[in-house]
Protein backbone atom coordinates (compact mmCIF):
# COMPACT_ATOMS: atom_id res chain seq x y z
CA UNK A 1 0.00 0.00 0.00
CA UNK A 2 1.04 3.58 -0.41
CA UNK A 3 2.64 5.76 2.16
CA UNK A 4 -0.50 7.81 2.49
CA UNK A 5 -1.96 5.86 5.33
CA UNK A 6 -3.68 7.59 8.15
CA UNK A 7 -2.72 7.39 11.80
CA UNK A 8 -4.78 4.29 12.43
CA UNK A 9 -3.04 2.46 9.59
CA UNK A 10 -5.98 2.58 7.22
CA UNK A 11 -5.69 3.69 3.60
CA UNK A 12 -7.97 6.55 2.72
CA UNK A 13 -10.73 5.53 0.35
CA UNK A 14 -10.30 8.72 -1.62
CA UNK A 15 -7.58 11.27 -1.48
CA UNK A 16 -7.23 14.49 -3.44
CA UNK A 17 -3.89 16.26 -3.67
CA UNK A 18 -3.87 19.79 -4.98
CA UNK A 19 -6.54 18.97 -7.54
CA UNK A 20 -7.11 21.82 -9.99
CA UNK A 21 -9.05 22.46 -13.15
CA UNK A 22 -9.17 25.48 -15.36
CA UNK A 23 -11.30 26.10 -18.41
CA UNK A 24 -9.45 28.64 -20.46
CA UNK A 25 -8.75 31.41 -18.00
CA UNK A 26 -11.34 30.31 -15.49
CA UNK A 27 -10.03 28.41 -12.50
CA UNK A 28 -13.02 26.27 -11.60
CA UNK A 29 -11.23 24.15 -9.01
CA UNK A 30 -8.02 25.22 -7.28
CA UNK A 31 -5.71 23.06 -5.25
CA UNK A 32 -8.33 20.97 -3.47
CA UNK A 33 -6.78 18.56 -1.00
CA UNK A 34 -8.57 16.20 1.37
CA UNK A 35 -8.88 12.60 2.46
CA UNK A 36 -11.89 10.41 2.96
CA UNK A 37 -11.63 7.35 5.20
CA UNK A 38 -13.94 4.31 5.11
CA UNK A 39 -17.29 5.23 6.62
CA UNK A 40 -16.63 8.97 6.44
CA UNK A 41 -19.56 11.17 5.59
CA UNK A 42 -18.29 14.39 4.14
CA UNK A 43 -20.29 17.22 2.67
CA UNK A 44 -19.08 19.91 0.31
CA UNK A 45 -21.06 23.10 0.41
CA UNK A 46 -20.64 26.41 -1.29
CA UNK A 47 -22.53 28.90 -3.37
CA UNK A 48 -23.56 28.17 -6.94
CA UNK A 49 -20.61 28.22 -9.27
CA UNK A 50 -18.16 27.37 -6.49
CA UNK A 51 -16.92 24.39 -8.53
CA UNK A 52 -18.60 21.60 -6.60
CA UNK A 53 -19.91 19.64 -9.56
CA UNK A 54 -16.69 20.28 -11.46
CA UNK A 55 -14.85 18.76 -8.52
CA UNK A 56 -17.05 15.66 -8.79
CA UNK A 57 -16.41 15.49 -12.51
CA UNK A 58 -12.68 15.54 -11.84
CA UNK A 59 -12.94 12.84 -9.22
CA UNK A 60 -15.02 10.60 -11.47
CA UNK A 61 -12.95 11.24 -14.57
CA UNK A 62 -15.50 13.06 -16.70
CA UNK A 63 -13.02 15.93 -17.10
CA UNK A 64 -9.27 15.51 -17.05
CA UNK A 65 -7.63 17.38 -14.20
CA UNK A 66 -5.38 20.32 -15.06
CA UNK A 67 -3.06 19.48 -12.20
CA UNK A 68 -3.01 17.58 -8.95
CA UNK A 69 -3.81 13.98 -8.17
CA UNK A 70 -6.75 11.75 -7.36
CA UNK A 71 -5.99 8.63 -5.34
CA UNK A 72 -8.49 5.86 -4.86
CA UNK A 73 -7.45 3.31 -2.20
CA UNK A 74 -3.94 4.73 -2.46
CA UNK A 75 -3.78 4.18 -6.18
CA UNK A 76 -3.18 7.15 -8.45
CA UNK A 77 -6.16 7.23 -10.84
CA UNK A 78 -5.75 10.81 -12.07
CA UNK A 79 -5.64 9.96 -15.77
CA UNK A 80 -8.09 7.07 -15.70
CA UNK A 81 -11.31 6.87 -17.62
CA UNK A 82 -14.55 6.86 -15.63
CA UNK A 83 -15.41 3.21 -16.10
CA UNK A 84 -12.11 2.05 -14.62
CA UNK A 85 -12.64 4.20 -11.53
CA UNK A 86 -16.04 2.65 -11.05
CA UNK A 87 -14.45 -0.77 -11.24
CA UNK A 88 -12.25 0.14 -8.27
CA UNK A 89 -15.29 0.87 -6.11
CA UNK A 90 -16.42 4.41 -6.84
CA UNK A 91 -19.98 5.38 -7.68
CA UNK A 92 -21.79 8.63 -8.13
CA UNK A 93 -25.15 10.21 -8.74
CA UNK A 94 -25.91 13.30 -10.79
CA UNK A 95 -27.36 16.63 -9.89
CA UNK A 96 -29.53 16.54 -12.98
CA UNK A 97 -31.23 13.18 -12.89
CA UNK A 98 -29.53 10.98 -15.46
CA UNK A 99 -31.31 7.69 -15.56
CA UNK A 100 -32.34 5.70 -18.63
CA UNK A 101 -35.74 7.30 -19.19
CA UNK A 102 -37.20 4.86 -21.68
CA UNK A 103 -36.15 1.74 -19.81
CA UNK A 104 -38.01 0.26 -16.88
CA UNK A 105 -36.91 0.71 -13.29
CA UNK A 106 -35.79 -2.92 -13.27
CA UNK A 107 -33.79 -2.49 -16.48
CA UNK A 108 -32.10 0.57 -15.01
CA UNK A 109 -30.97 -1.38 -12.01
CA UNK A 110 -29.95 -4.40 -14.08
CA UNK A 111 -27.70 -2.18 -16.18
CA UNK A 112 -26.17 -0.76 -13.03
CA UNK A 113 -25.46 -4.22 -11.63
CA UNK A 114 -24.03 -5.55 -14.90
CA UNK A 115 -21.66 -2.58 -15.11
CA UNK A 116 -18.92 -4.31 -13.18
CA UNK A 117 -19.57 -7.90 -14.19
CA UNK A 118 -17.60 -9.56 -16.98
CA UNK A 119 -20.89 -10.93 -18.28
CA UNK A 120 -21.67 -7.48 -19.65
CA UNK A 121 -19.88 -8.64 -22.80
CA UNK A 122 -21.93 -11.81 -23.18
CA UNK A 123 -24.04 -11.65 -26.31
CA UNK A 124 -25.18 -15.24 -26.83
CA UNK A 125 -27.38 -15.55 -23.78
CA UNK A 126 -30.42 -13.58 -22.65
CA UNK A 127 -29.85 -11.22 -19.74
CA UNK A 128 -33.04 -12.65 -18.24
CA UNK A 129 -31.28 -15.99 -17.78
CA UNK A 130 -28.95 -14.50 -15.16
CA UNK A 131 -30.86 -15.33 -12.00
CA UNK A 132 -28.27 -13.88 -9.65
CA UNK A 133 -28.37 -10.50 -11.36
CA UNK A 134 -32.15 -10.43 -11.20
CA UNK A 135 -32.17 -11.51 -7.56
CA UNK A 136 -29.82 -8.72 -6.68
CA UNK A 137 -31.86 -6.20 -8.63
CA UNK A 138 -35.04 -7.20 -6.84
CA UNK A 139 -33.27 -7.06 -3.52
CA UNK A 140 -32.05 -3.53 -4.23
CA UNK A 141 -35.50 -2.45 -5.34
CA UNK A 142 -37.00 -4.04 -2.25
CA UNK A 143 -34.68 -2.04 0.02
CA UNK A 144 -35.60 1.20 -1.69
CA UNK A 145 -39.30 0.34 -1.71
CA UNK A 146 -39.42 0.28 -5.50
CA UNK A 147 -40.51 -3.31 -5.91
CA UNK A 148 -44.04 -2.44 -7.01
CA UNK A 149 -42.80 -0.13 -9.75
CA UNK A 150 -40.12 -2.42 -11.17
CA UNK A 151 -41.77 -2.56 -14.58
CA UNK A 152 -42.62 1.13 -14.87
CA UNK A 153 -40.63 3.11 -17.40
CA UNK A 154 -38.47 5.59 -15.56
CA UNK A 155 -39.80 8.62 -17.40
CA UNK A 156 -43.17 8.03 -15.75
CA UNK A 157 -41.76 8.17 -12.21
CA UNK A 158 -42.16 11.29 -10.10
CA UNK A 159 -39.15 13.55 -9.63
CA UNK A 160 -38.70 12.35 -6.05
CA UNK A 161 -38.73 8.72 -7.14
CA UNK A 162 -36.21 9.46 -9.86
CA UNK A 163 -33.88 11.10 -7.34
CA UNK A 164 -34.08 8.02 -5.18
CA UNK A 165 -33.50 5.69 -8.11
CA UNK A 166 -30.36 7.69 -8.88
CA UNK A 167 -28.99 6.53 -5.57
CA UNK A 168 -30.11 2.94 -6.06
CA UNK A 169 -28.17 2.91 -9.33
CA UNK A 170 -25.15 4.25 -7.52
CA UNK A 171 -25.39 1.51 -4.92
CA UNK A 172 -25.85 -1.30 -7.42
CA UNK A 173 -22.14 -1.72 -8.00
CA UNK A 174 -21.48 -2.21 -4.26
CA UNK A 175 -19.22 0.82 -4.10
CA UNK A 176 -16.86 1.63 -1.24
CA UNK A 177 -17.38 5.31 -1.85
CA UNK A 178 -20.48 7.06 -3.12
CA UNK A 179 -20.47 10.58 -4.49
CA UNK A 180 -23.87 12.22 -4.21
CA UNK A 181 -24.44 15.37 -6.23
CA UNK A 182 -27.36 17.19 -4.60
CA UNK A 183 -29.50 14.15 -3.87
CA UNK A 184 -32.26 16.35 -2.45
CA UNK A 185 -32.35 18.76 -5.40
CA UNK A 186 -35.93 19.66 -6.24
CA UNK A 187 -37.44 17.56 -3.47
CA UNK A 188 -40.18 18.75 -1.17
CA UNK A 189 -39.20 19.04 2.49
CA UNK A 190 -41.06 15.84 3.32
CA UNK A 191 -39.29 14.00 0.50
CA UNK A 192 -35.90 15.27 1.53
CA UNK A 193 -36.44 14.03 5.08
CA UNK A 194 -37.24 10.63 3.59
CA UNK A 195 -34.16 10.86 1.45
CA UNK A 196 -31.99 11.68 4.45
CA UNK A 197 -33.37 8.76 6.38
CA UNK A 198 -32.75 6.49 3.45
CA UNK A 199 -29.15 7.68 3.25
CA UNK A 200 -28.62 7.27 6.98
CA UNK A 201 -29.68 3.64 6.77
CA UNK A 202 -26.88 2.84 4.29
CA UNK A 203 -23.99 0.61 5.29
CA UNK A 204 -21.91 2.55 7.85
CA UNK A 205 -18.71 1.32 6.17
CA UNK A 206 -19.65 3.12 2.94
CA UNK A 207 -17.86 6.44 2.55
CA UNK A 208 -20.04 9.23 1.24
CA UNK A 209 -19.02 12.50 -0.35
CA UNK A 210 -21.99 14.79 -0.64
CA UNK A 211 -22.79 18.02 -2.41
CA UNK A 212 -25.96 19.56 -1.09
CA UNK A 213 -27.68 22.88 -0.74
CA UNK A 214 -30.29 21.67 1.70
CA UNK A 215 -28.56 22.39 5.03
CA UNK A 216 -30.88 20.10 6.99
CA UNK A 217 -29.71 17.17 4.89
CA UNK A 218 -26.09 18.25 5.26
CA UNK A 219 -26.18 18.67 9.05
CA UNK A 220 -28.04 15.40 9.53
CA UNK A 221 -25.74 13.39 7.38
CA UNK A 222 -22.24 14.82 7.35
CA UNK A 223 -19.47 14.18 9.87
CA UNK A 224 -17.30 16.84 8.31
CA UNK A 225 -18.03 19.71 6.01
CA UNK A 226 -15.79 21.53 3.56
CA UNK A 227 -16.77 24.90 2.20
CA UNK A 228 -15.84 25.53 -1.41
CA UNK A 229 -15.62 29.08 -2.67
CA UNK A 230 -14.33 30.06 -6.11
CA UNK A 231 -12.91 26.58 -6.50
CA UNK A 232 -10.94 26.67 -3.26
CA UNK A 233 -11.57 24.95 0.05
CA UNK A 234 -12.21 27.84 2.38
CA UNK A 235 -12.78 25.95 5.57
CA UNK A 236 -13.17 22.38 6.78
CA UNK A 237 -14.63 21.24 10.06
CA UNK A 238 -17.37 19.55 12.04
CA UNK A 239 -20.92 20.69 11.29
CA UNK A 240 -20.96 22.75 14.51
CA UNK A 241 -17.78 24.61 13.59
CA UNK A 242 -19.03 25.37 10.11
CA UNK A 243 -22.37 26.52 11.40
CA UNK A 244 -20.66 29.04 13.66
CA UNK A 245 -17.87 30.10 11.33
CA UNK A 246 -17.85 33.80 10.63
CA UNK A 247 -16.37 33.41 7.19
CA UNK A 248 -18.89 30.80 6.11
CA UNK A 249 -21.72 32.91 7.41
CA UNK A 250 -20.52 35.74 5.25
CA UNK A 251 -20.05 33.95 1.99
CA UNK A 252 -22.64 31.31 2.17
CA UNK A 253 -25.19 30.97 4.91
CA UNK A 254 -25.69 34.69 5.30
CA UNK A 255 -26.10 35.50 1.68
CA UNK A 256 -27.49 32.20 0.50
Amino acid at each position, binding site marked *: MSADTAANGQTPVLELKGLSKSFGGLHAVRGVTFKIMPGDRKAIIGPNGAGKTTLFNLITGIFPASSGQVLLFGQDITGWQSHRR*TALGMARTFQIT*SLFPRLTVLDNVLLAIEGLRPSKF*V*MWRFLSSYRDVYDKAHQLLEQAAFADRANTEVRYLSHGEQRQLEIVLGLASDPKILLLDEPAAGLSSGESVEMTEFLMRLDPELAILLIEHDMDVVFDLAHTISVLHFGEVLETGKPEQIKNSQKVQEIYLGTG
Partner: protein
Amino acid sequence: MRSHRLKILMVIVALAAVAIVVPNTGSFVILLVTRALAFSILVMSLDILLGYTGLASLGQAAYLGVGAYATAILATKYHFGLGWDFWLVLLIGILLGAALAAFFGLLAIRASGVYFLMITLALGQCVWGLAYRWNSLTGGDNGINLRERPKFGGIDLANELTFFFLVFAVFCASLALMYTLVRSPFGRSLAGIRERELRMQILGYNTWLHKYIAFIIAGAFGGLSGVLWAHTAGIVSPENVVLTTSVDALLMAVLGGAGTLVGGVIGTFIVFGLREFLSTLVPWWQYVLGVVYVATILYLPTGLMGIPERLRQKRAKPDNPDGAKKLASLHHAEKTT
Protein backbone atom coordinates in the same frame (compact mmCIF):
# COMPACT_ATOMS: atom_id res chain seq x y z
CA MET B 1 -41.98 -11.83 -19.90
CA ARG B 2 -45.27 -13.12 -21.34
CA SER B 3 -45.46 -10.37 -23.91
CA HIS B 4 -41.96 -11.33 -25.09
CA ARG B 5 -43.05 -14.94 -25.59
CA LEU B 6 -46.12 -13.80 -27.45
CA LYS B 7 -44.03 -11.66 -29.76
CA ILE B 8 -41.62 -14.51 -30.46
CA LEU B 9 -44.55 -16.76 -31.20
CA MET B 10 -46.03 -14.24 -33.62
CA VAL B 11 -42.75 -13.91 -35.46
CA ILE B 12 -42.38 -17.70 -35.71
CA VAL B 13 -45.90 -18.00 -37.07
CA ALA B 14 -45.22 -15.25 -39.60
CA LEU B 15 -41.99 -16.94 -40.70
CA ALA B 16 -43.73 -20.29 -41.02
CA ALA B 17 -46.40 -18.64 -43.13
CA VAL B 18 -43.74 -17.20 -45.40
CA ALA B 19 -42.07 -20.60 -45.72
CA ILE B 20 -45.37 -22.25 -46.63
CA VAL B 21 -47.02 -19.58 -48.77
CA VAL B 22 -44.14 -18.24 -50.81
CA PRO B 23 -43.14 -21.53 -52.52
CA ASN B 24 -46.72 -21.82 -53.81
CA THR B 25 -46.62 -18.46 -55.54
CA GLY B 26 -45.17 -17.46 -58.87
CA SER B 27 -41.51 -16.82 -59.51
CA PHE B 28 -42.11 -13.08 -59.39
CA VAL B 29 -43.07 -13.24 -55.73
CA ILE B 30 -40.41 -15.79 -54.86
CA LEU B 31 -37.70 -13.57 -56.31
CA LEU B 32 -39.14 -10.49 -54.64
CA VAL B 33 -39.25 -12.16 -51.23
CA THR B 34 -35.75 -13.53 -51.68
CA ARG B 35 -34.42 -10.06 -52.46
CA ALA B 36 -36.23 -8.51 -49.55
CA LEU B 37 -34.97 -11.20 -47.15
CA ALA B 38 -31.38 -10.75 -48.25
CA PHE B 39 -31.60 -6.98 -47.93
CA SER B 40 -33.42 -7.06 -44.63
CA ILE B 41 -30.38 -8.66 -43.00
CA LEU B 42 -28.59 -5.42 -43.80
CA VAL B 43 -31.49 -3.37 -42.44
CA MET B 44 -31.49 -5.39 -39.21
CA SER B 45 -27.75 -4.92 -38.87
CA LEU B 46 -28.32 -1.19 -39.21
CA ASP B 47 -31.05 -1.37 -36.60
CA ILE B 48 -28.54 -2.75 -34.11
CA LEU B 49 -26.73 0.56 -34.51
CA LEU B 50 -29.67 2.88 -35.04
CA GLY B 51 -32.39 1.49 -32.85
CA TYR B 52 -30.40 -0.19 -30.12
CA THR B 53 -27.21 1.85 -29.83
CA GLY B 54 -28.52 5.19 -31.04
CA LEU B 55 -25.94 5.51 -33.82
CA ALA B 56 -27.44 6.56 -37.15
CA SER B 57 -25.11 5.32 -39.85
CA LEU B 58 -25.33 6.74 -43.35
CA GLY B 59 -22.86 4.26 -44.77
CA GLN B 60 -24.22 0.83 -44.00
CA ALA B 61 -24.36 -0.12 -47.69
CA ALA B 62 -20.56 -0.28 -47.64
CA TYR B 63 -20.71 -3.57 -45.74
CA LEU B 64 -23.22 -5.05 -48.12
CA GLY B 65 -20.85 -3.83 -50.81
CA VAL B 66 -17.72 -5.62 -49.58
CA GLY B 67 -19.64 -8.86 -49.14
CA ALA B 68 -21.22 -8.59 -52.56
CA TYR B 69 -18.08 -7.53 -54.40
CA ALA B 70 -16.01 -10.22 -52.69
CA THR B 71 -18.53 -12.82 -53.79
CA ALA B 72 -18.65 -11.56 -57.34
CA ILE B 73 -14.90 -11.14 -57.72
CA LEU B 74 -14.15 -14.56 -56.26
CA ALA B 75 -16.77 -16.19 -58.46
CA THR B 76 -15.89 -14.52 -61.76
CA LYS B 77 -12.11 -14.16 -61.45
CA TYR B 78 -11.22 -17.26 -59.47
CA HIS B 79 -14.27 -19.43 -59.95
CA PHE B 80 -14.36 -19.71 -56.18
CA GLY B 81 -17.50 -20.13 -54.13
CA LEU B 82 -19.60 -21.90 -56.72
CA GLY B 83 -19.50 -25.32 -55.06
CA TRP B 84 -19.19 -26.40 -51.48
CA ASP B 85 -16.82 -23.48 -51.03
CA PHE B 86 -19.89 -21.22 -51.17
CA TRP B 87 -20.06 -21.63 -47.40
CA LEU B 88 -16.50 -20.41 -47.21
CA VAL B 89 -17.49 -17.33 -49.21
CA LEU B 90 -20.32 -16.74 -46.77
CA LEU B 91 -17.73 -16.77 -44.00
CA ILE B 92 -15.40 -14.53 -46.00
CA GLY B 93 -18.24 -12.05 -46.51
CA ILE B 94 -18.90 -11.94 -42.79
CA LEU B 95 -15.22 -11.52 -41.97
CA LEU B 96 -14.68 -8.82 -44.59
CA GLY B 97 -17.71 -6.90 -43.35
CA ALA B 98 -16.42 -7.18 -39.81
CA ALA B 99 -12.89 -6.20 -40.81
CA LEU B 100 -14.05 -3.15 -42.73
CA ALA B 101 -16.23 -2.12 -39.81
CA ALA B 102 -13.34 -2.66 -37.42
CA PHE B 103 -11.27 -0.27 -39.50
CA PHE B 104 -14.01 2.30 -40.12
CA GLY B 105 -15.15 2.07 -36.52
CA LEU B 106 -11.79 3.32 -35.30
CA LEU B 107 -12.50 6.54 -37.17
CA ALA B 108 -16.25 6.78 -36.65
CA ILE B 109 -17.02 5.66 -33.11
CA ARG B 110 -15.43 8.67 -31.48
CA ALA B 111 -18.01 10.90 -33.14
CA SER B 112 -21.58 11.19 -32.03
CA GLY B 113 -24.88 12.54 -33.30
CA VAL B 114 -24.69 14.49 -36.52
CA TYR B 115 -20.95 13.99 -36.77
CA PHE B 116 -21.40 10.25 -36.74
CA LEU B 117 -23.84 10.61 -39.62
CA MET B 118 -21.35 12.64 -41.60
CA ILE B 119 -18.36 10.43 -40.98
CA THR B 120 -20.21 7.26 -41.91
CA LEU B 121 -21.41 9.07 -45.02
CA ALA B 122 -17.81 9.91 -45.90
CA LEU B 123 -16.62 6.36 -45.26
CA GLY B 124 -19.45 4.94 -47.32
CA GLN B 125 -18.49 7.28 -50.14
CA CYS B 126 -14.89 6.00 -49.98
CA VAL B 127 -16.15 2.50 -50.70
CA TRP B 128 -18.45 3.79 -53.42
CA GLY B 129 -15.60 5.75 -54.98
CA LEU B 130 -13.46 2.62 -55.18
CA ALA B 131 -16.32 0.53 -56.56
CA TYR B 132 -17.12 3.15 -59.15
CA ARG B 133 -13.64 3.94 -60.33
CA TRP B 134 -11.47 0.91 -59.69
CA ASN B 135 -12.36 -0.60 -63.05
CA SER B 136 -9.84 -3.40 -63.08
CA LEU B 137 -11.15 -4.84 -59.84
CA THR B 138 -14.80 -3.87 -59.69
CA GLY B 139 -15.81 -3.45 -63.30
CA GLY B 140 -16.48 0.22 -62.64
CA ASP B 141 -19.86 1.60 -63.50
CA ASN B 142 -21.01 -1.60 -65.19
CA GLY B 143 -20.31 -3.73 -62.16
CA ILE B 144 -19.79 -7.48 -62.27
CA ASN B 145 -22.26 -10.00 -63.58
CA LEU B 146 -22.46 -13.33 -61.82
CA ARG B 147 -23.27 -15.86 -64.45
CA GLU B 148 -24.01 -18.77 -62.16
CA ARG B 149 -25.12 -19.64 -58.68
CA PRO B 150 -23.41 -22.21 -56.45
CA LYS B 151 -24.11 -25.90 -56.81
CA PHE B 152 -23.13 -28.47 -54.21
CA GLY B 153 -24.19 -32.00 -53.29
CA GLY B 154 -27.59 -32.44 -54.86
CA ILE B 155 -28.44 -28.80 -54.31
CA ASP B 156 -28.51 -26.39 -57.20
CA LEU B 157 -29.06 -22.81 -56.10
CA ALA B 158 -29.88 -21.82 -59.65
CA ASN B 159 -33.31 -23.17 -58.82
CA GLU B 160 -35.04 -20.13 -57.44
CA LEU B 161 -37.04 -22.04 -54.84
CA THR B 162 -33.94 -23.79 -53.53
CA PHE B 163 -32.20 -20.45 -53.40
CA PHE B 164 -35.17 -18.90 -51.63
CA PHE B 165 -34.93 -21.53 -48.91
CA LEU B 166 -31.22 -20.93 -48.50
CA VAL B 167 -31.72 -17.18 -48.10
CA PHE B 168 -34.68 -17.81 -45.82
CA ALA B 169 -32.59 -20.11 -43.61
CA VAL B 170 -29.73 -17.63 -43.38
CA PHE B 171 -32.24 -14.87 -42.66
CA CYS B 172 -33.87 -16.85 -39.84
CA ALA B 173 -30.47 -17.64 -38.34
CA SER B 174 -29.47 -13.96 -38.53
CA LEU B 175 -32.72 -12.86 -36.94
CA ALA B 176 -32.31 -15.38 -34.12
CA LEU B 177 -28.70 -14.36 -33.53
CA MET B 178 -29.46 -10.65 -33.53
CA TYR B 179 -32.49 -11.14 -31.33
CA THR B 180 -30.36 -13.02 -28.83
CA LEU B 181 -27.79 -10.25 -29.07
CA VAL B 182 -30.18 -7.42 -28.32
CA ARG B 183 -31.58 -9.23 -25.30
CA SER B 184 -28.20 -10.31 -23.99
CA PRO B 185 -26.35 -8.34 -21.31
CA PHE B 186 -24.26 -6.82 -24.08
CA GLY B 187 -27.33 -5.84 -26.08
CA ARG B 188 -28.92 -4.25 -23.05
CA SER B 189 -25.75 -2.25 -22.48
CA LEU B 190 -26.21 -0.82 -25.97
CA ALA B 191 -29.70 0.36 -25.04
CA GLY B 192 -28.20 2.01 -21.97
CA ILE B 193 -25.64 3.79 -24.15
CA ARG B 194 -28.43 4.93 -26.45
CA GLU B 195 -30.34 6.37 -23.53
CA ARG B 196 -27.49 7.97 -21.62
CA GLU B 197 -23.91 7.27 -22.46
CA LEU B 198 -22.31 9.26 -19.68
CA ARG B 199 -24.24 7.38 -17.04
CA MET B 200 -23.08 4.10 -18.55
CA GLN B 201 -19.46 5.19 -18.19
CA ILE B 202 -20.06 6.02 -14.56
CA LEU B 203 -21.67 2.62 -14.09
CA GLY B 204 -18.43 1.00 -15.21
CA TYR B 205 -18.99 0.43 -18.91
CA ASN B 206 -16.31 1.24 -21.43
CA THR B 207 -18.87 2.69 -23.78
CA TRP B 208 -16.45 3.24 -26.63
CA LEU B 209 -15.63 -0.46 -26.66
CA HIS B 210 -19.28 -1.49 -26.56
CA LYS B 211 -20.15 0.79 -29.45
CA TYR B 212 -17.13 -0.42 -31.39
CA ILE B 213 -18.07 -4.06 -30.92
CA ALA B 214 -21.66 -3.30 -31.97
CA PHE B 215 -20.34 -1.53 -35.06
CA ILE B 216 -18.24 -4.57 -36.00
CA ILE B 217 -21.12 -6.97 -35.47
CA ALA B 218 -23.36 -4.81 -37.65
CA GLY B 219 -20.63 -4.80 -40.30
CA ALA B 220 -20.39 -8.59 -40.15
CA PHE B 221 -24.11 -9.04 -40.78
CA GLY B 222 -23.87 -6.42 -43.51
CA GLY B 223 -21.16 -8.50 -45.21
CA LEU B 224 -23.31 -11.60 -44.88
CA SER B 225 -26.27 -9.89 -46.54
CA GLY B 226 -23.90 -8.79 -49.31
CA VAL B 227 -22.96 -12.37 -50.19
CA LEU B 228 -26.63 -13.32 -50.44
CA TRP B 229 -27.42 -10.15 -52.34
CA ALA B 230 -24.77 -10.82 -54.98
CA HIS B 231 -26.29 -14.19 -55.84
CA THR B 232 -29.84 -12.91 -55.53
CA ALA B 233 -29.41 -10.00 -57.90
CA GLY B 234 -26.86 -11.68 -60.16
CA ILE B 235 -25.07 -8.38 -60.54
CA VAL B 236 -22.96 -6.28 -58.23
CA SER B 237 -22.49 -2.64 -59.14
CA PRO B 238 -21.70 0.72 -57.53
CA GLU B 239 -25.47 1.07 -57.25
CA ASN B 240 -25.26 -1.30 -54.25
CA VAL B 241 -22.91 0.94 -52.30
CA VAL B 242 -24.19 4.33 -53.36
CA LEU B 243 -25.40 6.77 -50.72
CA THR B 244 -29.06 6.22 -51.61
CA THR B 245 -28.78 2.51 -50.78
CA SER B 246 -27.54 3.36 -47.29
CA VAL B 247 -30.29 5.92 -46.92
CA ASP B 248 -32.85 3.38 -48.13
CA ALA B 249 -31.77 0.96 -45.45
CA LEU B 250 -32.07 3.68 -42.84
CA LEU B 251 -35.55 4.63 -43.97
CA MET B 252 -36.70 1.01 -44.04
CA ALA B 253 -35.55 0.57 -40.45
CA VAL B 254 -37.36 3.73 -39.38
CA LEU B 255 -40.48 2.93 -41.37
CA GLY B 256 -40.92 -0.41 -39.64
CA GLY B 257 -39.79 0.91 -36.28
CA ALA B 258 -36.21 1.38 -35.12
CA GLY B 259 -35.10 -0.73 -32.19
CA THR B 260 -37.33 -3.69 -32.97
CA LEU B 261 -35.36 -5.75 -35.55
CA VAL B 262 -38.60 -7.17 -36.96
CA GLY B 263 -39.75 -3.65 -37.80
CA GLY B 264 -36.81 -3.28 -40.16
CA VAL B 265 -37.84 -6.47 -41.93
CA ILE B 266 -41.40 -5.22 -42.31
CA GLY B 267 -40.11 -1.88 -43.59
CA THR B 268 -37.93 -3.68 -46.13
CA PHE B 269 -40.82 -5.76 -47.39
CA ILE B 270 -43.09 -2.74 -47.70
CA VAL B 271 -40.53 -0.74 -49.65
CA PHE B 272 -39.55 -3.65 -51.90
CA GLY B 273 -43.20 -4.49 -52.39
CA LEU B 274 -44.16 -0.91 -53.23
CA ARG B 275 -41.30 -0.69 -55.67
CA GLU B 276 -41.98 -3.94 -57.46
CA PHE B 277 -45.79 -3.98 -57.46
CA LEU B 278 -46.59 -0.31 -57.60
CA SER B 279 -44.09 0.39 -60.35
CA THR B 280 -45.93 -2.05 -62.60
CA LEU B 281 -49.27 -0.42 -61.81
CA VAL B 282 -48.71 3.34 -61.76
CA PRO B 283 -45.98 5.60 -63.09
CA TRP B 284 -45.98 7.79 -60.01
CA TRP B 285 -45.13 5.06 -57.56
CA GLN B 286 -42.10 6.88 -56.27
CA TYR B 287 -44.30 9.66 -54.95
CA VAL B 288 -46.06 7.08 -52.84
CA LEU B 289 -42.73 5.97 -51.46
CA GLY B 290 -41.64 9.55 -50.80
CA VAL B 291 -44.88 10.41 -49.10
CA VAL B 292 -44.72 7.23 -47.02
CA TYR B 293 -41.24 8.20 -45.85
CA VAL B 294 -42.14 11.78 -45.05
CA ALA B 295 -45.37 10.84 -43.33
CA THR B 296 -43.63 8.19 -41.25
CA ILE B 297 -41.01 10.61 -40.04
CA LEU B 298 -43.50 13.35 -39.30
CA TYR B 299 -46.36 11.40 -37.82
CA LEU B 300 -45.07 7.97 -36.91
CA PRO B 301 -41.55 8.39 -35.59
CA THR B 302 -41.66 5.08 -33.79
CA GLY B 303 -42.56 3.36 -37.04
CA LEU B 304 -45.19 0.79 -37.77
CA MET B 305 -44.11 -1.37 -34.85
CA GLY B 306 -44.73 1.58 -32.58
CA ILE B 307 -48.42 1.81 -33.45
CA PRO B 308 -49.74 -0.67 -30.83
CA GLU B 309 -47.69 1.04 -28.14
CA ARG B 310 -48.99 4.46 -29.17
CA LEU B 311 -52.58 3.28 -29.14
CA ARG B 312 -52.08 1.75 -25.72
CA GLN B 313 -50.61 4.97 -24.41
CA LYS B 314 -53.36 7.06 -25.87
CA ARG B 315 -55.83 4.93 -23.99
CA ALA B 316 -53.84 4.74 -20.78
CA LYS B 317 -52.60 8.30 -20.45
CA PRO B 318 -54.69 10.70 -22.46
CA ASP B 319 -53.47 13.54 -20.27
CA ASN B 320 -49.75 13.01 -20.65
CA PRO B 321 -48.71 14.97 -23.71
CA ASP B 322 -45.20 15.27 -22.36
CA GLY B 323 -44.64 11.54 -22.35
CA ALA B 324 -46.06 11.18 -25.82
CA LYS B 325 -43.83 13.93 -27.05
CA LYS B 326 -40.76 12.30 -25.64
CA LEU B 327 -41.80 9.03 -27.16
CA ALA B 328 -42.19 10.76 -30.46
CA SER B 329 -38.53 11.49 -30.46
CA LEU B 330 -36.15 9.20 -32.23
CA HIS B 331 -33.30 11.23 -30.92
CA HIS B 332 -32.01 9.25 -28.02
CA ALA B 333 -28.74 10.96 -27.42
CA GLU B 334 -29.81 13.11 -24.53
CA LYS B 335 -26.53 13.89 -23.03
CA THR B 336 -25.67 15.75 -19.90
CA THR B 337 -22.37 17.41 -19.52
